[in-house]
């Protein structure tokens, strides 16, 4: 007998499994504007590179007539493939099969591919599209979630973990994405919440739509749970691939270098920043003026836009940029922007990505609302993250560096490797107006013409302290540079820092102010 019969039998079995939830369910998926799980995987990975595992896995539940139901692959697809020729592990929940609900075997498949990713030191991409726990399987499905969360945590800081939300992701399920490094959402498709609109209505009497409660825009702009927002699934896949070009495959290696390229001519660094520190500009243009090919991939673009974080390259090497954004809320630090920066800095540090900080900020956002929201513990995250980071850390002070903000934004005192300042830099405890009002209070109040005296004192303070030279005279600033020299100096600083080693005290782990 030849093998032919067995091969034909295998092909038939595969064909059945590949049908997923069947034609009707696939049509429904398409009607919602969604691709199927396999289409998504194929769109992200290199052509024909996907290899699927556990195709024949089936659930083992018996209660509630479950033993009479067949769910092909138990509602999730796992496998390996390549992106730009580099290996990745991937899973995609299949909403067409039992609503992508998570039962024991479904979770076991996800855990299997996660274990593989961690062992092989390759990135993990998880596509979420699931109605939630499979209630018929009871505590087994909860156990399944727990197993996944544990693995997310174990893999954190070892391999990059990307979560792609392409459908509902509700209840406990949201915590896997929350534990990963980058969350991708698509307008009108992604829905994330702990409790859905019905529960909100019953308990609080508030009517709210799914989109308003946990849509892609909400998580990109308000909650900060998402890092990348796209209008279509295809745009989302391009973002995933683009992000991966900047990342190392694990914490043991560096990101692949690219051929160095000059910034584009339209970003003229001399013309971007106004000399008057109260005037706004877009700090992303400064990043583009120093980054290779002016290419900057912004992370969490719409959330806490008063700080800008993201990836670019300098002389071919991946750099994590952190920059105050004077264009939004004058670039102040507040709870949200501190969380955003702190997390990004820790990602870069874990994955050997040098940090370049561009500083121009007037301080922290004042007000009861911020104090009540815990700006003390949130703000402390920035200090913690910068202090803890051992990758090369370079700061360029463009204009304002006042008070606690000066210390927080990767200052010499938190062990920055290089501190550069433009001649427009003002390094002081606060702006000249505020400082003069306090220091010369008596003189101003007792003067014949208080307003004139005040102005004179402000001018005096500005002359004396609102510059980079006081800090430079104490060695807190290494070099005052012309704006035009910035890129050249950054290239040099990164080059000479490439073998940086730092001894840190032995500890199990620190206790950052979560």
């Amino acid at each position, binding site marked *: 007998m030849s093998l032919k019969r067995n091969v034909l039998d295998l092909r038939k079995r595969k064909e059945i499994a590949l049908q997923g939830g069947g034609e009707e369910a696939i049509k429904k998926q398409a009607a919602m504007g969604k691709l199927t799980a396999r289409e998504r995987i194929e769109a992200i990975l290199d052509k024909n590179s996907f290899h699927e595992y556990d195709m024949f896995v089936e659930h083992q539940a018996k209660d509630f007539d479950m033993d009479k139901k067949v769910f092909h692959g138990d509602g999730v697809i796992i496998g390996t493939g390549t992106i730009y020729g580099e290996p990745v592990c991937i899973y995609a929940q299949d909403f067409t099969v039992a609503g992508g609900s998570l039962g024991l075997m479904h979770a076991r498949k996800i855990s299997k591919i996660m274990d593989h990713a961690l062992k092989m030191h390759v990135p993990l991409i998880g596509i979420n599209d699931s109605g939630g726990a499979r209630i018929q399987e009871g505590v087994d499905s909860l156990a399944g979630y727990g197993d996944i969360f544990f693995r997310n945590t174990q893999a954190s800081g070892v391999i990059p973990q990307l979560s792609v939300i392409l459908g509902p992701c509700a209840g406990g399920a949201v915590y896997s994405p929350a534990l990963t490094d980058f969350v991708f959402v698509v307008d009108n498709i992604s829905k994330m919440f702990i409790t859905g609109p019905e529960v909100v209505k019953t308990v609080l009497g508030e009517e709210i739509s799914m989109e308003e409660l946990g849509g892609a825009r909400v998580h990109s702009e308000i909650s900060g749970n998402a890092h990348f927002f796209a209008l279509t699934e295809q745009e989302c896949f391009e973002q995933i691939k683009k992000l991966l070009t900047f990342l190392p495959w694990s914490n043991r290696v560096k990101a692949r270098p690219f051929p160095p390229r000059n910034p584009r001519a339209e970003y003229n660094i001399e013309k971007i920043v106004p000399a008057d520190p*109260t005037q706004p500009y877009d700090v992303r243009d400064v990043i583009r003026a120093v980054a290779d090919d002016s290419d900057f991939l912004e992370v969490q673009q719409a959330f806490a836009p008063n700080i800008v974080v993201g990836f670019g390259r300098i002389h071919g090497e991946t750099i994590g940029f952190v920059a105050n954004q004077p264009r939004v809320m004058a670039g102040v630090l507040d709870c949200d922007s501190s969380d955003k920066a702190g997390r990004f800095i820790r990602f870069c540090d874990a994955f050997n990505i040098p940090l370049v900080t561009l500083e121009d900020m007037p301080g922290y956002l004042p007000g009861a609302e911020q104090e009540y*929201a815990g700006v003390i513990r949130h703000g402390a995250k920035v200090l913690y993250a910068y202090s803890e980071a051992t990758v090369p850390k370079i700061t360029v002070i463009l204009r304002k560096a006042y008070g606690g903000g000066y210390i927080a934004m990767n200052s010499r005192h938190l062990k920055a490797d290089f501190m550069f300042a433009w001649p427009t830099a003002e390094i002081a405890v606060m702006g000249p107006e505020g*400082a003069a009002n306090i220091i010369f209070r008596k003189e101003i109040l007792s003067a014949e013409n208080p307003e004139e005296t005040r102005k004179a004192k402000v001018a005096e303070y500005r002359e004396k302290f609102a510059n980079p030279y006081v800090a430079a005279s104490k060695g807190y600033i290494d070099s005052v540079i012309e704006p035009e020299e910035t890129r050249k100096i950054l290239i040099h600083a990164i080059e000479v820092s490439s073998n940086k080693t730092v001894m840190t005290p032995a500890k199990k782990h620190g206790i950052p102010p979560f």
Partner: protein
Amino acid sequence: MNEKYDELEIDGVSYKTTFPRKFLERKQRAIPAAGAVSTYIPGTIVEVLAREGQEVKGGELLCILEAMKMRNKVLAPVDGIVARVHVKRGDKVPKNTLMFEIE
């Protein structure tokens, strides 16, 4: 840039800048006045007992708020005079609605 700028004052300096939606729509988290009585649950006002100008003792019944099929007594938190009554019988009120101000 043809953007319209707002001003944000920090330490006596006014900066030209913009505000994102989350900031503009933020909840003001000021400490409520001791005599302010707000709903702690959404519901319907089924009876109002306190009148403007009336003197009340702390613990006195101000109104009945029906919520989740329960009739909840709303009591005066402090002694004082009812300066304002913001609700009337039959009002459907969301959470955190100011009902009475006692001075």
